[in-house]
């Protein structure tokens, strides 16, 4: 080879990952949909100023305006106390999406941390895995209810009613759904740490922290990504269950889960069920696709095909 083509400087791997991600149609579509949902719930309320929580004090007007089908005034219709559903979807979406993503992040962080520690350090394996078994054997919903019941008030006092509820729910869901991730990650780490490239890193003198960050974690991304995308849907639903049982947000404070729950129990107006249902499904579906695309993009063996 005598050509003097320019030798590229090593590219940032994030660029490679983005380039590959862009080629995944489903993932790009998912990204756009999630972007639209986020715009809807964050920017939307700035333009759509209907009241989402408070009921119209004028009783006659309220009763006449109940359970209306979509009109120009109320594009998604009104609910059982004549509140605008679109405004409620916007406010509820903010909470539901935040709960979903943050609770998932907490679960993934705790699960990966425990899985890596248990898989990599032999001495921690027994205690940490028994802890995982312990958590798996607990009835989670009662545990969550007790957790929120015991610490919810303290959090509400510290951060205000809605923010306090948000924190306690997110922490509660996160701390009760990390076990599957921990098990998957531990299994992967056990296999990975016997690989020769980890031995090679040790012979170079790489410390345990760097081996984990550089060699182990990037190779457990795939299963973690799948667990994460499924976890978001779970978190959104769990939040609605908590709210339904009276330990989550206030009953009049909308979330997608609680709106769905309410409509499901009053099936006379199925249209009220469809809106939050579609929103949750869209979120879960597009996050799944994004996860799929990310997994492919992060794997150099698939990249460039």
């Amino acid at each position: 080879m005598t050509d003097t083509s320019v030798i590229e400087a090593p590219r940032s791997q994030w660029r490679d990952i983005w380039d590959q991600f862009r080629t995944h149609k489903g993932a790009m579509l998912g990204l756009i949909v999630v972007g639209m949902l986020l715009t809807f719930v964050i920017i939307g309320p700035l333009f759509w100023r209907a009241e989402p929580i408070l009921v119209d004090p004028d009783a006659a007007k309220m009763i006449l305006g109940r359970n209306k089908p979509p009109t120009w005034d109320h594009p998604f219709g009104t609910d059982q106390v004549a509140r605008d559903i679109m405004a409620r979807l916007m406010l509820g979406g903010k909470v539901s999406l935040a709960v979903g993503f943050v609770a998932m992040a907490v679960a993934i962080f705790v699960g990966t941390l425990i899985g890596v520690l248990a898989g990599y350090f032999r001495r921690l394996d027994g205690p940490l895995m028994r802890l995982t078994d312990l958590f798996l054997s607990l009835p989670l919903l009662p545990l969550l209810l007790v957790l929120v019941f015991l610490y919810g008030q303290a959090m509400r006092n510290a951060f205000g009613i809605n923010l306090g509820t948000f924190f306690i729910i997110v922490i509660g869901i996160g701390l009760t759904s990390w076990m599957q991730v921990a098990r998957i990650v531990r299994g992967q780490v056990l296999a990975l740490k016997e690989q020769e490239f980890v031995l090679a890193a040790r012979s170079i003198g790489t410390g345990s922290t760097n081996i984990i960050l550089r060699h182990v974690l990037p190779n457990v991304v795939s299963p973690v990504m799948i667990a994460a995308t499924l976890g978001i849907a779970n978190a959104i639903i769990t939040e609605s269950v908590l709210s339904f049982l009276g330990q989550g947000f206030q009953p009049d404070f909308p979330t997608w889960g609680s709106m769905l729950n309410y409509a499901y129990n009053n099936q006379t107006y199925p249209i009220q069920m469809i809106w939050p249902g579609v929103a949750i499904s869209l979120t879960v579906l597009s996050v799944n696709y994004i996860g799929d695309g990310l997994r492919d993009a992060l794997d150099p063996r698939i990249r460039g095909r």
Partner: protein
Amino acid sequence: MFDDGPRPLVQVQDLRMYFPIFSGIFRRHTGDVKAVDGISFDIVEGETLGLVGESGCGKSTVGRALLRLYNITSGRVIIDGEDVASLGPEALRKKRPTMQMVFQDPQASLNPRMTLARIIGEPLNEHTDWSTARKLDRIYELMDAVGLNRRFANRYPHEFSGGQRQRIGIARALALNPKFIVCDEPIAALDVSIQAQVVNLLEDLQEKLGLTYLFISHDLSMVRHIADRVAVMYLGRIAELSPRDPLYAKPLHPYAEALLSAVNEPDPVRAANRRRIILTGDVPSPANPPKGCNFCTRCPKVFDRCRTEKPELREVETGRFVACHLFDDKPQAAGSTGASEANERNQQGVTQ
């Protein structure tokens, strides 16, 4: 330093590596797999010591124990004046650049999620605080040294052939200017034509950089090509340690003899006359080695003493060390070249 010949870079003294066996309900320590059971050898600076033996005899364990990838059970491993076996974690980390390793499976020894530049650059990241540009220069320099095109820097291991991957592994091992490299069957996973390229590359680099190799292999012809001295291992112990040419011309230890009789002979005329020694039986379990000589269960020249007493590795001819009772009563006279004598003793052994 006394000026008495070349300096040994690596001195291994009575190295033992036992892997504990835990069994029963309570996972009690019930025994040990004696993967390496008391071996000693020196490697002189700039030489290549071949380490051969059949699968499971502990060759790779020796290589890894030398670099302290295992915490050894007992013994001393002195590399460049320091006992690696007893260094603390930080001192060991500082010592790592002196000693590096080339691994057997070039696919498994490279992280599939790192580019070539990052793989070769990892030792630099760990042990230097150079600027990115300087590291990149060094990476390109290393790629040139092992014959990889500089434009490959952004590629991932799966995009390379086996031989190229092994070159990446070698470049990574060279990154910190080591003195001593353990080559753990570096050619076993490669095609024959590629094997020659990689071995020649290793030889060139040795010449250029003055490297010292421990070349672990079960490919006897390749060891003959590259090694200066050869150690033959059997079941965790060294059976014979001899300079290459005398060993291949006339192996002394019965196991070495049997092993070397298995080397293929390219000349059909000579191949027809080749006398293969076919050993019977299996290798005993390293968890429960024989009481006497490890080879006594399969040795064609076994006699009573072999079953009760472990033979020590001793010098029977100049530079030739053998662990076998057949050579025990040999006078330790300096400079005796008893080739025929040794042969006679072999004959005696057979009649037992």
